[in-house]
């Protein structure tokens, strides 16, 4: 077990290192960042001065080593646009993004599970067919366009929910959240639903196929033969067994929710780090882009690592499979 964990941690570190290299050389190859920082009519001396100040006059390998040293200290330089520490700006915006992703995740389970369960139990029911058709639609609908339609329908035509912003936030235990006020919930409803849409379809499909598989298992037949009520069979025996894979998949999907929130946050003007990233891209604010990428990669690697280790703890076959390779 220990050997497995050590190997997985080493792999994770390797991924992070690979990303550091890719990000550095990616930004290095693209162009001379000095030209983004100096005004258009800058003299040659001014350009040289900026170059020296930021260390761009040093050879590539030295710049790379300095970059790695900075990254190891959690330092990504100062934002060209905002002036503050890039990583600080990202971390400031992070709670808003995580809150949005979390609410979307809960929505995916609360909406997707019952629908998928129903579609799995009565596959030939017209409503079940409608649910499955809906889930295909959910996979096909482009997220950003659904966002626009949600705004159009709920904000412009019906006027029920606000289209932009986060609304008032309350601070609890040092974390700002909008989940404690009704106004906050109104603000988060549309963006969270937009973000959750793809995952709702995913949960419906997983729950349906899981239910169909489980209903044929011996333990379900046995429970039925024992005379348990259908409600108990579905609620306890089937639900418990299909929950495990669904929760696992959703855990892995949390990272992609954070990534997709770039789109949702931009449409709904949600003040998270995804919106910040897009603004930085449009203004070529390189330190912020680099900081965002590294934060998200770290988030991904950590989630994958935790899921892998939990899996191997629960299922010894995973560990053995790795050894045989």
């Amino acid at each position, binding site marked *: 077990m220990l050997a497995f964990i050590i190997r997985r941690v080493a792999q994770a570190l390797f*991924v992070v290192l*690979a990303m550091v290299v890719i990000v550095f050389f*990616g*930004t290095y190859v*693209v162009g001379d960042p000095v030209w983004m920082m100096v005004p258009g009519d800058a003299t040659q001396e001014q350009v040289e001065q900026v170059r020296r100040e930021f260390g761009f006059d040093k050879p590539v390998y030295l710049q790379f080593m300095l970059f790695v040293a900075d990254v190891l200290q959690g330092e990504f330089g100062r934002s060209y646009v905002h002036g503050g520490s890039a990583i600080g700006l990202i971390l400031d915006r992070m709670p808003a993004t995580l809150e949005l992703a979390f609410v979307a995740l809960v929505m995916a389970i609360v909406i997707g599970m019952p629908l998928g369960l129903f579609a799995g139990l009565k596959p030939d029911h017209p409503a079940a067919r409608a649910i499955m058709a809906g889930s*295909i*639609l959910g*996979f*096909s*609908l*482009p*997220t*950003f*366009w659904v966002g*626009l*339609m949600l*705004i*159009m329908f709920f*904000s*412009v*035509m019906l006027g029920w929910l606000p*289209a932009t912003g986060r609304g008032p936030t309350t601070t609890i235990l040092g974390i700002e959240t909008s989940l404690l006020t009704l106004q906050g919930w109104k603000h988060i409803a549309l963006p969270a639903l937009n973000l959750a849409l793809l995952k709702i379809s995913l949960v419906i499909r997983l729950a349906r196929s899981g239910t169909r598989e489980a209903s044929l298992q011996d333990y379900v037949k046995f429970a039925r033969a024992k005379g348990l009520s259908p409600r108990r069979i579905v609620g306890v025996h089937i639900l418990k067994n299909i929950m495990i894979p669904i929760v696992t998949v959703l855990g892995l999907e949390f*990272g*992609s929710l954070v*990534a*997709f929130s*770039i*789109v949702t946050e*931009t*449409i709904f003007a949600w003040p998270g780090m995804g919106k910040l*990233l*897009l603004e930085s*891209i*449009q203004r070529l604010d390189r330190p912020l*882009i680099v900081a965002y*990428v590294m934060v*998200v*990669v770290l988030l*991904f690697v950590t989630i*994958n690592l935790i899921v892998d280790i939990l899996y191997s703890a629960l299922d010894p076959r995973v560990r053995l499979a790795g050894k045989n390779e």
Partner: protein
Amino acid sequence: MSDLTLTKKAEAPQKAKGEFARFVERFLEDRVAVFGLALISVIVLLAVLAPLIAPQNPYDLGRVDIMDSRQPPGAQALDGFTMWLGSDGVGRDLWSGILYGLRISLMVGLVSGLIAACLGLVIGLVAAYFGGRIENVIMRIVDLQLSLPSVLVALILVALLGKGVDKIILALVVVQWAYYARTVRGSALVERRKEYVEAARSLGLSHTRTMLRHILPNCLAPVIVIATVQTAHAISLEATLSFLGVGLPQTEPSLGVLISNGFQYMLSGKYWISFFPGVALLLTIVGINLVGDRLRDVLNPRLEK
């Protein structure tokens, strides 16, 4: 003896044709899939024939009148034709814009898919065929690529590369190739151990020939399924990037660019500028996905009765 070879030769193509006919037959059994296929056919036809059927050439500035801007669906253009879907912010007929936008969206999706497929096929084959360290390195890179969400990778790439059709195609290739590589490697690993590969090798055929002429054709079924899903995904991703303002420039108005242009008019209730291009995008993606779903069922040997 010669009779025998003759009949055998005659039988072989017949059997292949029979298989294909059976495949077509099975595909057509599902009415939803047929609907999807018809949908795509119509859309592709509309895109190809756009210059002939569009009432207005949206690139021709001489024919676009600013006085026509933001007209609701069904309004009469100053030129005399009816703008059934309304017009956009600078007075272009939306229906014409969608027809031309479809061309760009489909082109970007297909070209990037084709390049990614070729790249992924070769890389996946090489990994499965040679095994060992080469395979290890390749699959690590594939895993790394697939562990990151495509929208993020594409966004960062386009941010670094800049706008333009070639750049967005490059970004879409980068996010897609790994799916093909993984799929091909999976089936090639199985095929590699079969006798016919050994036979080809003992006949003295080169590695390249063995891989491309003998193994590859037997790995294509799952690739076709992946290709449909990935093309839909690529079209959707391009639209997303263009919507975010980092994809195609205004001079290449794909569906995503059209939707993006309409966003600013959304809050004032002029829904059609974003709505109709979105519907076109949606129908395209739904059509491809319906066909892909059916292909998966038909081509999957485990589901065959």
